[in-house]
């Protein structure tokens, strides 16, 4: 029987890993997770922002970024994809 794990603990395990953040709207971010707080505001570095526009998907490179947790819907750990 698997031991219970708290959601914030799961996010904490992602610190240092590349992650993929999906927002509530048509926007996504990838980057390395440097840290977060109780509200899951996240500090990312080497960030790429992906926004869906009528013209297509626009990609923007950002430096070290504080992402407001208000609009975050989901977080994926990108390094786990290599396991499968």
């Amino acid at each position, binding site marked *: 029987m698997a031991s219970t794990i708290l959601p914030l603990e799961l996010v904490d395990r992602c610190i240092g890993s590349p992650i993929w953040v999906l927002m509530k709207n048509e926007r996504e971010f990838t980057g390395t997770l440097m840290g977060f*707080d109780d509200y899951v*505001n996240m500090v990312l570095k080497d960030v790429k922002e992906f926004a869906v526009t009528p013209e297509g998907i626009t990609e923007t490179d950002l*430096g070290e970024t*504080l992402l407001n947790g208000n609009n975050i819907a989901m977080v994926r750990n990108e390094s786990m994809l290599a396991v499968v």
Partner: protein
Amino acid sequence: MSSASPQPEEAAAPAGSPSEFLKNIVGKRVKVRIGSGVDYHGLLTCLDGYMNVALEETEEWANGRKTAEYGDCFLRGNNVLYISALEEL
């Protein structure tokens, strides 16, 4: 999880955390994007736990074009999508 209260101050905050980031970024040039997708590039004068932001020498960029310039700019934190450093921290 309420957006109405500011982030709590922690005695021993982890190095990469938001409060650390905010301490390091004051005085640097930043890009602040708000929910509508409009950007504000400027010198970060100060900010608070609500992500309210005060900028100097600000440029407003919408749809990839500069639309305005402001000497001083105040952004209410509830609108802020992200704060991104334009220079090395």
